[in-house]
């Protein structure tokens, strides 16, 4: 369904141009959840933005191809991009507060993709939006419909983001650190929701995270990135149990986990 190969992204506003992503390759099948993991500066977010053609002006794709359902994404005109975004590929972001427009109602933002990509009238749009809100676990959707983002908690906002991203029934959703800003219990709920939506709608998810624990719980395959380069890729189980790259080993060793207490002596 999605075939990225040799993707290279450069920042061209500095001299010499800075390579943010180098020779990135990835393929995804329909309904699959694939993870990209890396520390800050690894280029994982740039890759995600490139998939929706949302790179800032000074970041340029200098090599590689991105083919989505037979369409060459890199040759799309701005007009054609608009038809892909929200309809074929949608995206959710890390900060559910700032990623929602503060002065528009939840309802207006939920049904935006429908307004842009379908000919549905206001009434059926609202019906679809309300049904979707129900599905992403927002109780009392009628009441929330007229609310504004600041009236919702962080977890609810992320549910709204997910609902708004799925309401147009896209085949791929890019999720850029969707649970990083949330508490552990909320994080678990949102991850469950994403898995459920993935089952329900067969929407493939490209899951970007810095946290291998999250990747392990939701993804089937993973690519490990470091400073723009893919150091390792494969099935999550393989990569985590038998890492080949030095960096992956280092990363795995650094993850806090309960098999390895750093505190040897105990004080009193």
């Amino acid at each position, binding site marked *: 369904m999605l075939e990225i190969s040799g993707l290279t992204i450069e920042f061209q506003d500095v001299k010499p141009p800075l390579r943010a992503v180098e020779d990135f390759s990835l393929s995804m099948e329909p309904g699959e959840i694939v993870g990209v993991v890396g520390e800050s500066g690894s280029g994982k977010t740039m890759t995600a933005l490139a998939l*929706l053609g949302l790179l800032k002006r000074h970041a340029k794709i200098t090599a590689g191809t991105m083919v989505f359902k037979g369409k060459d994404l890199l040759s799309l005109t701005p007009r054609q991009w608009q038809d892909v975004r929200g309809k074929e590929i949608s995206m959710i972001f890390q900060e559910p507060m700032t990623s929602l427009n503060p*002065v528009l109602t939840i309802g207006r933002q939920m049904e*935006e993709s429908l307004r842009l990509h379908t000919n549905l009238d206001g009434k059926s749009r609202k019906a679809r939006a309300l049904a979707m809100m129900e599905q992403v676990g927002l109780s009392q959707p009628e009441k929330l419909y007229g609310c504004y983002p600041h009236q919702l908690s962080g977890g609810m906002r992320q549910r709204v983001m997910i609902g708004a991203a799925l309401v147009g029934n896209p085949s791929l959703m890019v999720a850029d650190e969707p649970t990083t800003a949330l508490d552990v219990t909320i994080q678990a709920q949102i991850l469950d929701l994403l898995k459920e939506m993935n089952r329900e709608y067969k929407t493939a998810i490209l899951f970007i995270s810095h946290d291998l624990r999250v990747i392990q719980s939701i993804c089937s395959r993973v690519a490990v990135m470091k400073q723009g380069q893919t150091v390792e890729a494969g099935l999550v189980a393989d990569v985590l149990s038998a890492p080949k790259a030095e960096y992956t080993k280092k990363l795995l060793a650094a993850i806090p986990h309960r098999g390895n207490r750093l505190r040897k002596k105990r004080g009193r």
Partner: protein
Amino acid sequence: MKYLIKKICTLIITLLVISLLSFLAFQVIPGDAALSRLGTGATEQKRESLRREMGLDRPMLERYGSWLKGFLKGDMGESYTYSVPVSGLIREKLPITLAITGMAFVWMLAVSIPLGLLAGKFAGRLPDRILTVLNQLVMSVPGFFMGILITCLFGLALHWFTPGGYVSYQEGWRPFLGYLFFPSVSIALPKCAMGVKLLRSSVIGELNQDYVRTAYSRGNSQTQALFGHVLKNSLLPVLTFWALAIADIVASSVILEQVFTIPGLGTLLVQSISNRDYPVVQAVIVLVAGLTVAINFLVDVLYGVIDPRVNLR
């Protein structure tokens, strides 16, 4: 609703404070009001009787009360210089100043919103650069100098209007407003420049917000994102500027009325200050202050309408 009530309370208190302060200010004027009215040649007796007649012998708070009551009824005292009721003077001049400031405000909105959006959208590119330079220049011209330049260019050189040929509104609204066109433009120009600059930076700031990225990710075009998402957010900070600009417009109108010899409130105020005609000065000040505060109140309410978060604060 709670927000509105709170704002109305603030408005009333503010108005009271303003009236009290301006009343007190003109109570501590150096020199005796009765003295300045009669001149130094008057006898002690005459002054005493006048003081009683003017009510200057009563306690301060009582005088404030009766002054306020009179003011609200439209009785603003009597001008020292012209010996006519102040309210009459003001009623005659008020429409002139309202017309000129109103026109200036409309020009400001009409020019700064589209240009500000344009400059913000094309930030760093040619239209923006031209606008920025132009803006910087316009902002640097002192108000009265702008008036003089415009008089010279459009009045003396191009003969599009007759400098000093003011036509009263009693003689006809069209020539009246026609004469006010250039003065109001002179007032509005620097404010336009400020407005464009502010809206531009506000739009640029909003365009960098995460929610704009979200809007694009749902398939909005640049124009759709600009008008559907960015516009409302970026107008919020500019709204505050507009409220302040009204005060500035009123202030410039005082000066520009002089440049274009228009007998409005500003001219009246300046003359009264020179003549130490305190009742007139006081009335004009309180009136302008009241108007400014009221307009600020309206802007606050408008803010509450546009920004849903306000009700929480």
